[in-house]
């Protein structure tokens, strides 16, 4: 039994890795060692596995609003909205955010209820370099959705 769960998890992981594929390939292209890139993608995948379990997240429903280029990685404004009627029967339960190339990928998790009225949050995050922001939403019917968006970070090294 335990064995079986582990096996399905492996499959899930492979699928998730596939979703990060494009980013990994791009990182290789610009001279990053593939191992670093894989490790980054893997840690987000691991973190995501804890949330989604055996489920396979679908794309759609999530709108990630980020600047294309962040002026300073210390304070990057972002907004995330999940499309949902937010009724008792159909609402967003939780939303998770990761940044795949930060030293630690976790950014934040949010819990909503029908009393939230709207599943939208705005905040400011730290990004160590150019990377992907990954969002996963958990719906009241047990379904998962995911979205990913790249953001370029130009940290001012000058101007003490």
């Amino acid at each position, binding site marked *: 039994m335990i064995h079986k769960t582990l096996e399905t998890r492996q499959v899930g992981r492979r699928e998730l890795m596939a979703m990060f594929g494009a980013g990994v390939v791009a990182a290789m292209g610009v001279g990053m060692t593939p191992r670093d890139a894989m490790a980054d993608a893997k840690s987000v995948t691991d973190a995501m596995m804890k949330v989604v379990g055996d489920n396979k997240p679908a794309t759609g429903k999530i709108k990630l609003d980020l*600047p294309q*280029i*962040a*002026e*300073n990685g*210390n*304070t*990057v*404004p972002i907004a995330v909205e999940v499309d949902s009627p937010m009724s008792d029967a159909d609402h967003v339960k939780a939303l998770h955010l990761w940044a795949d190339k930060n030293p630690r990928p976790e950014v934040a998790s949010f819990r909503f209820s029908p009393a939230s009225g709207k599943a939208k949050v705005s905040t*400011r995050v730290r990004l160590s370099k150019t990377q992907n922001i990954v969002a996963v939403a958990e719906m009241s019917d047990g379904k998962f959705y995911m979205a990913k968006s790249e953001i370029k970070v*130009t*940290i*001012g*090294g*000058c*101007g*003490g």
Partner: protein
Amino acid sequence: MGKFHLGSLLAAGAILAVGFSTQANAEGKHGMYANGEIRSGYTYLTPQSKAIQNDDFQNPGMIWVDDGATLYEAVDGKAGKSCKACHGKAEVAMKGVATTYPKYDEDTKKIKNIEAQVNRCRTKHMQAKPWKYESGQLLAMTVFIRHQSRGMPMNVSVDGPAVPFFQKGEKFYKQRRGALDMACSNCHIDNAGKNARANLLSQGQTNGFPTYRLKWQKVGSTHRRFRGCNKQVRATPYKYASDEYMNLELYVAWRGRGLPVETPAVRN
């Protein structure tokens, strides 16, 4: 308080002048954030950073304003007084004050900025210890005092007794220094609008100080910025509150004449 009346008259005149020259500004797109060719650092920000400054509930600098407001009412020192006990409501008493700072000081025969005046009041009038330069308290109070002039045009006096200090400030600004052998003017006059490494160079104005810098992740003073800009060209920075920086602050404030006080501004 006749002085304040005079101050607000001058301010009204300056607002008219700003309105006029902004229209004459070929670009005209910077609105209140420019006075002819003189442009605030705000105009060089990305829309995301502008948005943080535009909304008082997103602008982290407002936390320092709140802190300053609390300190303004707090009794401190042997005289048993608060700032408010002498000055009354800050919204009235401190309105417009920052537009005229730094200014010549009769007592010391030198240039003083807001920070220096605050510490003067603490030591002389409150018999309290001066706050350390760049401490949370002095920053919060300076932000709070300057915030009372938000939107009013900078209007420092550089005539009369201020002249020799202004000249020293200008000389400092144009003097090459450090291993890179660069003057302030090389970056902020000759190359404003161009990129220096990853940074877009502005005119290096001080109308938004103390500013919340995304890099610092907190509010910092003009002198902290001057030190940073000195270090950048690998020159030895001067001390906080040094005469050199007071004179420089006067000169830079004059460069930004007519720009609105933006404190607490948000900068990269």
